[in-house]
């Protein structure tokens, strides 16, 4: 039976019913990796021997009827910024190229406790800074739909791994769109959770007031299954909240009729690809057929999202990156003075985009500029959040394009700023801390590249956006 093209939900069912063993499923994914990984480069590390051991353990649990969760036995890929005890975790950076974490990040610990099989650590833009997975120190990841194109970023490795049938599901991070834009580029489902929904403990931070960790998988149902395991308060991460964790799977089938869905007019900027627009319109029609009410709404401060982000994120980055000083971890470059060790370690170990953002952050936080830039950005951030709060008084969710175009060619962005504008539709969600899901919805006419749509929901309403995404996904299948 064809295994690797099945969804996580299907594989989970077949495993629990005894029709497929976890070992068979794992071997099928490993065979796919052996065939195509050289061309795609989704992984920094493929944990094949470990995966086999973990699969055998899952099979033993099934025999003993001691299965741990619906995810038991399922091969999952983890973005290489989530610490995995004893397994190299690099953030796709030279400064951590041999770093072996002494503990498990909370997201991984919960998945381990649920019985998943680790198939590998996926490639990312270095320290998750980028929108194309081109800044990885260990090579570019290629889009499985067209190898000359980017899979998006920074969770390009995770998105490519799902799209290439290398795993049943994956974990990524989303700080400015890094799960949603790759999901759109690779034709998979990607969920940015509300800030505070999933613990960030043990996941290397980029921008601490914006970072989120979430699932990528073939379908919204698959994402709901993963979210069920990883969501919830963690005493180690004081930014996680007590918000109850609903039954995400149970809520998937509830009706969309009666929901009101807003389409923000500011998201229709010049330069949007016509196929992306057409996919939006098709999904709008599907939602209307399903009985939802569509309403035009306004998020007046949308155009300020990217500039706000590129002040706040680099500021937080400059603080978070200070720990990479070559002392407690790193390659051990020596020096006569401490400054020499810092300078050499950071010069050799960190890539250009990381350095660029550290410089911007240090500049806007420095004396004389803090008020004009950083404080100003934090105030505009409030206005952006208020736009969403206001609009969610009248609508249950928002439908928007995920990014202006389908996957672009690797190497085609001629300046950092051009790359930053990729996240124009995803960034506002991070600034406001709300949740957003991208679901595959169509393809470009000529090149047949995947096109997704984005659904935003109020914070801690993942069940609503997953439900809408689920109905859209099912409508497209038929």
């Amino acid at each position, binding site marked *: 039976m064809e295994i690797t093209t099945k969804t996580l939900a299907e594989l989970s069912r077949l495993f629990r019913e005894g029709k497929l063993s976890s070992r068979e499923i794992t071997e099928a994914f490993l065979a796919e990796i052996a065939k195509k990984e050289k061309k795609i480069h989704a992984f920094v590390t493929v944990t094949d021997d470990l995966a086999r051991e973990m699969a055998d353990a899952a099979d033993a649990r099934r025999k003993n009827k001691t299965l741990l969760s619906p995810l038991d036995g399922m091969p999952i890929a983890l973005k290489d910024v989530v610490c995995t005890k004893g397994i190299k975790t690099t953030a796709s950076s030279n400064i951590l190229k041999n*770093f*072996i974490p*002494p*503990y498990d990040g909370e997201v991984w610990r919960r998945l381990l406790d649920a019985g998943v099989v680790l198939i590998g650590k996926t490639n990312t833009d270095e320290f998750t800074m980028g929108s194309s997975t081109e800044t990885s120190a260990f090579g570019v990841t290629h889009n499985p739909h067209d190898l000359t194109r980017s899979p998006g970023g920074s969770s390009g490795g995770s998105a490519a791994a799902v799209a290439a049938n290398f795993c049943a599901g994956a974990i990524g991070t989303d700080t400015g769109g890094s799960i949603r834009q790759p999901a759109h580029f690779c034709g998979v489902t990607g969920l940015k959770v509300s*800030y*505070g929904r999933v613990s960030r403990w043990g996941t290397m931070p980029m921008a601490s*007031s914006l970072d989120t960790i979430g699932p990528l998988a073939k379908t919204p149902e698959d994402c709901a299954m993963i979210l069920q395991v990883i969501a919830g308060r963690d*005493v180690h991460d*004081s*930014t996680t*909240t007590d918000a109850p964790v609903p039954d995400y799977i149970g809520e998937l089938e509830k009706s969309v009729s009666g929901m009101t869905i807003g389409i923000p007019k500011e998201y229709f900027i010049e330069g949007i690809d016509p196929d992306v627009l057409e996919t939006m319109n098709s999904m709008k029609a599907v939602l209307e057929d399903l009985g939802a009410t569509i309403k035009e709404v306004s998020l007046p401060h949308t*155009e*300020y999202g990217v*500039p706000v982000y*590129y*002040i706040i994120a680099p500021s937080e980055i*400059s603080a978070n990156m*200070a720990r990479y*000083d*070559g*002392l*407690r971890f*790193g390659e*051990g470059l020596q*020096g*006569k*003075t*401490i*400054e020499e*060790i*810092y*300078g*050499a370690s*950071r*010069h050799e170990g960190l890539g250009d985009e990381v*350095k*660029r953002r*550290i*410089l*911007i952050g*240090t*500049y806007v936080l*420095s004396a004389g500029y803090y008020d004009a*830039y950083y*404080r*100003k*950005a*934090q*105030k*505009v*951030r*409030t*206005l952006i*959040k208020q736009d969403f709060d206001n609009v969610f008084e009248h609508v249950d969710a928002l439908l928007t394009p995920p990014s202006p175009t389908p996957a672009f060619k690797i190497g085609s962005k001629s300046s*950092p*700023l051009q790359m*930053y504008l990729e996240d124009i539709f995803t960034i506002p969600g991070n*600034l*406001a*801390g709300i949740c957003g899901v991208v679901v595959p919805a169509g393809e470009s006419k000529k090149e047949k590249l995947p096109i997704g749509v984005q659904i935003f929901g109020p914070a801690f309403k993942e069940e609503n956006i997953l439900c809408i995404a689920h109905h859209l996904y099912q409508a497209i299948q038929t």
Partner: protein
Amino acid sequence: MISTKELEHIARLARLNFTEKELEKFSRDLNEIISFVQKLEKVDTRDVPETSQVTGLQNVSRKDEVVIFGSEDALLECAPHEIENHSIKIPKIM
């Protein structure tokens, strides 16, 4: 416009070493980005409070009890320098 002198100062604050050429390149990038973010000047933010975090959580606390991590050796093993007395040996700071 950020001058080269200013950029050298920023680089020093951030403990980043650069060659002449690198400094020029980053100077161009930074100036382009700073020009772009300046569009925020147009936004009226009088009486608007700052958002540093979106959860609204305040004073999240726990009991002031020591919890033993238990893997100090594993942590020390990550350090690429000489270990002495459970400490990482580094050049003098002051």
